[in-house]
């Protein structure tokens, strides 16, 4: 699974091994990258380890925050989605308004697979992701026929098409409007129940096994994205974003790289969508609706495109506002409006999002140059 997302060549259907070896060799030589990678990995593991406790159970802090563990899990799932989406938007410069198709499509595929074939969580994720990848291939092929703004419109349109298909003609598969209710999640590898608490004291940090399962994918997703971005592929993605024509003149097959980037982000969305099904044991029809695509756009941009941690931050902020702040008596009813205004301000004034603001602030305090050490920009 992680191979699939790590190495876009594998998606080509051709013989991957040779290409993989060469490319692995090449980035291994970059020693500093490896060190940074370790740093990223450690940071990520520490973060996902203390976050749920801080958020849901820590004295005072959790009461003030009003968090709960289910939301922490949901945040990680969306974080995987956002990291993949940023590969496309932040690094390749393509704005898709149709990623609900991969998120929701994978969620349905995972759900149906779990009910009909196997309830093994790993296989469920594999099934959902495979569907998302194949579908991203088709949709990307169609949508990339037109560049720029048309791409956004076309992805939006085709994702809506899938929504309408799931809602009515394919209702015999999807259970239509009522959502898919027959999800079956069995024990991991036949023995580990995902809804079981971990042994003390691990339970204090992680709570249920499900969190560990999701968090593992989240950390892997982050590392995969980091590797891709520091591979020649990542360089090409950035080159395309900076100047598509120049990249073309250099002899790169821009169209193909764009498609790869699209499929890659579709794969991330697929992993996330499948985990969403396992987490909720239910697939709502709304998971295919275009507002879902809009949400991932807002999260990613709000947090900060073109950085590794920015989109994750965006997810945390958005879901927190949506699920906790929305319950406040005073500003609760206006949560969506407030997010809309903040979003427009960010787009207009702070194109690098909240993460960018933090980085700039940090740079000012440190007095040095902009801290572009997140593996993204350099």
């Amino acid at each position, binding site marked *: 699974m992680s191979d699939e997302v790590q190495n876009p060549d594998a998606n080509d259907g051709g013989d991957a091994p040779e290409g993989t070896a060469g490319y692995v060799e090449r980035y291994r030589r970059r020693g500093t990258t490896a060190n940074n990678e370790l740093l990223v990995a450690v940071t990520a593991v520490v973060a996902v380890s203390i976050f749920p406790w801080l958020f849901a159970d820590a004295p005072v802090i959790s009461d003030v925050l009003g968090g709960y563990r289910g939301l922490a899990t949901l945040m990680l799932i969306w974080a995987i989605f956002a990291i993949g989406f940023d590969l496309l938007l932040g690094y390749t410069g393509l704005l898709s308004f149709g990623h609900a198709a991969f998120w929701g499509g994978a969620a349905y595929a995972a759900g149906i697979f779990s009910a009909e074939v196997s309830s093994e969580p790993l296989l469920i994720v594999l099934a959902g992701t495979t569907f998302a990848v194949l579908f991203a291939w088709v949709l990307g092929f169609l949508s990339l026929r037109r560049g720029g703004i048309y791409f956004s419109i076309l992805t939006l349109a085709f994702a809506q098409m899938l929504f309408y298909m799931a809602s009515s003609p394919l209702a015999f598969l999807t259970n239509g409007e009522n959502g898919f209710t027959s999800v079956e999640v069995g024990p991991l590898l036949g023995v580990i129940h995902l809804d079981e608490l971990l042994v003390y004291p691990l339970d204090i940090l992680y709570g249920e096994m499900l969190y560990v399962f999701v968090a593992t994918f989240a950390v892997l997703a982050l590392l995969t994205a980091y590797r891709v971005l520091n591979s020649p592929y990542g360089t090409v993605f950035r080159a395309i974003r900076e100047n598509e024509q120049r990249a073309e003149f250099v002899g790169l097959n821009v169209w193909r790289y764009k498609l790869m980037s699209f499929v890659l982000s579709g794969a991330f969305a697929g992993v996330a969508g499948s985990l969403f099904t396992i987490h909720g044991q239910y697939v709502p029809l709304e998971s295919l609706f275009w507002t879902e695509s809009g949400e991932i756009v807002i999260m990613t941009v709000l947090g900060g495109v073109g950085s590794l941690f920015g989109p994750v931050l965006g997810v945390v902020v958005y879901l927190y506002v949506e699920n906790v702040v929305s319950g406040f008596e005073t500003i609760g009813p206006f949560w969506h409006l407030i997010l809309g205004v903040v979003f*427009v301000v960010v787009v207009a004034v702070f194109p690098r999002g909240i993460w960018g603001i933090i980085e700039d602030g940090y740079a000012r305090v440190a007095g040095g140059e902009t801290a572009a050490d997140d593996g993204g920009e350099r």
Partner: protein
Amino acid sequence: MSLAADLLRVFLNGLQTGAIYILVAIGLSIILGTLRFVNFAHGALYLIGAYAGLLITLEVNLSNGLLREWGFETIGLGWGFLPALIIVPLFVFVIGLAMERFVARPFYDRPDTDQILVTFGLAIIAQELFRVLFGGQSINFARPGWASGPVSLPIIGNFPKWRLYVIIITGILVAIVWLLVEYTDFGLIVRAGTRDPEMVELLGIKLTRPYIVMFGIGAALAGVAGVVGAPLENVNPNIGTGVLVPAFLVVVIGGVGSIRGAVVGGVLLGMVFSVLVGAPLPSIDILGTQITWSAWAQVGIYALAAVVLLVRPEGLFGEEVTG
């Protein structure tokens, strides 16, 4: 009922469904073609048009929302429909000008994605603003007496009067815009600017003003669409985004910057929808599942867009575009 009556009915229904799409799509298409500006907030103009039309036409009882909390139990002027049909386009025209000046202009030199993002954000703000103020539920936009009820037509019998008016109003508006673009100096400049803006500027003609006016006209058309389209259904904060996606499809099918394309695209979409819903097609059995065509009506319009795109990526009436 005869086959002829069936076909005629399907045709009229298709025309009417397409009419609203056309009104919204023309503005989108022109703005995209001339200013190279993609406006995800174009649906918000439809939304504003609908609410403005509602408030000018009727006095509305509010059951919840912020306005109700502030003490407005009813709101609206109750002037009737015709004043709304005149005031709303002017009002939305002004909003269009303001939008060009304060939203679009600062973003002309920014990447396409930034334009989409900022207009998408504005669409959300507009939608949420109406939700917060009016409470989110659907408000009945009752039609005036002279426009409600059926009219008896030859061959097909009863047909909703308002739908016929929608087709006629759309026809008139499209004709006006068409004449404006094809047969006036203003239109000539706009068309030339669409083709080759540098050349036009070299000839000493400033393009800014005609472009702004075109932006306003496109906005006003979306506003009118809101006024004539909303009485078909009800007014709620989601109708703006609801109409945006089909309108984009129309632009994609018809080709950017082309009024003819928007009209043909709109009619095509309306027809596909109407035929799948209403034409006397036999239902078929696949693997024991009964396939009813009407269930595929919504999917059909997207499939049409996909086909057009595969065959003619630039759209039916679009200029050849690379990429």
